[in-house]
């Protein structure tokens, strides 16, 4: 990319809006995923009994099973949320930047 184009984009306020909004959003999302996953796996490491206790009295299904499946579903939901916001906010800003500088 030519230097003048880079300069033009960098000095566009919308570019800064895009970068700061998207960067903070995606790192927050990544951290949420990490926290949820590590909460799951560290519970297994520290407290196996908690994971192995029955979901309700008399059942053999343990708490660990719905929790594990919930982490899988949660991961999918997070990707959906990211897409929603990317479509609604980031892509619009990006389009506007392109229209202004190109």
């Amino acid at each position, binding site marked *: 990319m030519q230097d003048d184009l880079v300069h033009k*984009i960098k000095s566009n306020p919308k570019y800064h809006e895009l970068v700061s909004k998207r960067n903070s959003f995606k790192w927050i999302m990544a951290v949420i995923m990490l926290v949820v996953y590590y909460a799951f*796996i*560290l519970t297994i*490491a520290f407290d196996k009994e908690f994971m*192995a206790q029955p979901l309700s009295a008399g059942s*053999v299904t343990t708490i660990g099973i719905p929790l*594990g*499946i919930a982490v899988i579903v949660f991961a999918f939901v997070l990707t959906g949320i*990211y897409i929603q916001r990317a479509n609604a906010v980031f892509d619009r800003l990006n389009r506007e930047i392109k229209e202004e500088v190109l």
Partner: protein
Amino acid sequence: MSVWKRVLPTVLLMLITGSALAAGGDVGQVQKQAVNIPAIIMFLVFVAATLGITYWAAQRTKTAKDFYAAGGGITGFQNGLAIAGDYMSAASFLGISGLVFLNGYDGLIYSVGWLVGWPIIMFLIAEQLRNLGKYTYADIVAYRFERVPMRTLAATAALIVVILYLIGQMVGAGKLIQLLFGLDYVYAVIIVGVLIVMYVTFGGMLATTWVQIIKAGLLLTGATVIAFGALYLASDGSMSPEKMFQNAIAKHPKGEAIMGPGTLVTSPIEAISLGLALMFGTAGLPHILMRFFTVGNAIEARKSVFYATGWIGYFYILTFLMGFGAIVLLTGNPEFADAAATGGIRGGQNMAAVNLAAAVGGNLLLGFISAVAFATILAVVSGLTLAGASAISHDLYANVFAHGNVDEQQEVRVSKIATIVLGIIAILLGIAFEKQNVAYLVALTFSVAASANFPILLMSIYYGKMTTRGALIGGWLGLISASVLVFVGPTVWTQILGMGDPIFPLKFPALVSMTIAFLGIWIGSATDNSERAKKEHEAFIAQDVRCQTGIGAEGASSH
């Protein structure tokens, strides 16, 4: 096309004689099963269809972009299925359901770890890969750095990961074919090798992608039928997982222990390290990363991850149901018993899903799932081979040896030669590594991918102060430390080599080796005061603008 016309009949002949040999009967091997005619017919139909696709793709594969990236014309939905297909390998299909069959809950821990890497890929690298790269992830790693050493590092790491992953797949192929098709191990592995070389050399990425998409559809269909069929039968017709779990506890030698975490995660350190390897390993798999270059733009790249995550998550839930279904329906069932094999079933634990297909749907479903499992191996090995061949031709040949001065056609030709060489290597590895547990082998691959490929990729996108020196120090240290620690760890040192107590205590060294890699990158870059380092800092500004906006990205000119 003349080569094509010569090769095609030979392969068909091989397949037919292969089946005929099999039909000739058992030559004294105890584990080999009777010939499964529906399986062979369905497999031949799959092969014929995929060779047809390869022929179609071959006519559309003219440029390097066609060969490496399917011309950039794959949609997000298609790519999502193809990525899911790459990820739903035979090792994960057979391996995870086998782990659940053997240990119950522990199998789910693997699944969760493997899935949660996907959102991370979407948030941090999918769009960035598409905006910065062209054909291989090394394009990003070498974007603003010294070309020759960076490409050498990235290609070496890519090839090591590809070859480790290949071993798991070829072993799966061997076991499966021995069990199902009654075909001699060596013949079967050679057929796999020949077919994947044909898909890749003639059809390039376009054929590889479509083979993967078809297989993903078949596998998801087959797994759905088996999982819910098994749930129905194992829950005495009530479709209640609770009832199935009760029946499983009654049958499993470990009893209630299968419902909670077992021995997979023993200490918090082990848990953290395992999690890092599973989560970030995915983001370092070259055959997955290269799929992001097959879509038109960052929006499609992001969409692919959304679909892929959904399909893979659904698939993992199915493998969990299958594992428990297998406990109920296979344990103690004389039809599937083999006292000598792991888990007491025919073919050992890794054949739980396949045996379960027979228990649920008889010979026909067994035939279907055998054919699909074989197809899975073909599709995944094709993707791996293409990733390995791209590392050799695009990174090592075109950019390291020829310094970028190479004609596109020549580069593609080198890639095809590399494919043939890798096909031969895959065959040899398949024979050499016959007796290992495939799921653990895949897990080892993830440690190396998370420690060697992922850190340099992530840091080259986000760390503006990274320099060539830092990247090389961190990248090589990550690669070497992960490989050495896996070697002297419990899996290789103790279990495989039988050398006694492991020198390094963790099965997954990612916690240590990833730390070494990131520290190496940081210290190596921060202490780099060279002129080159200053230029690399400045080059980050333009790289970041392209990364953020997609302006200047490959194939984005249509905007």
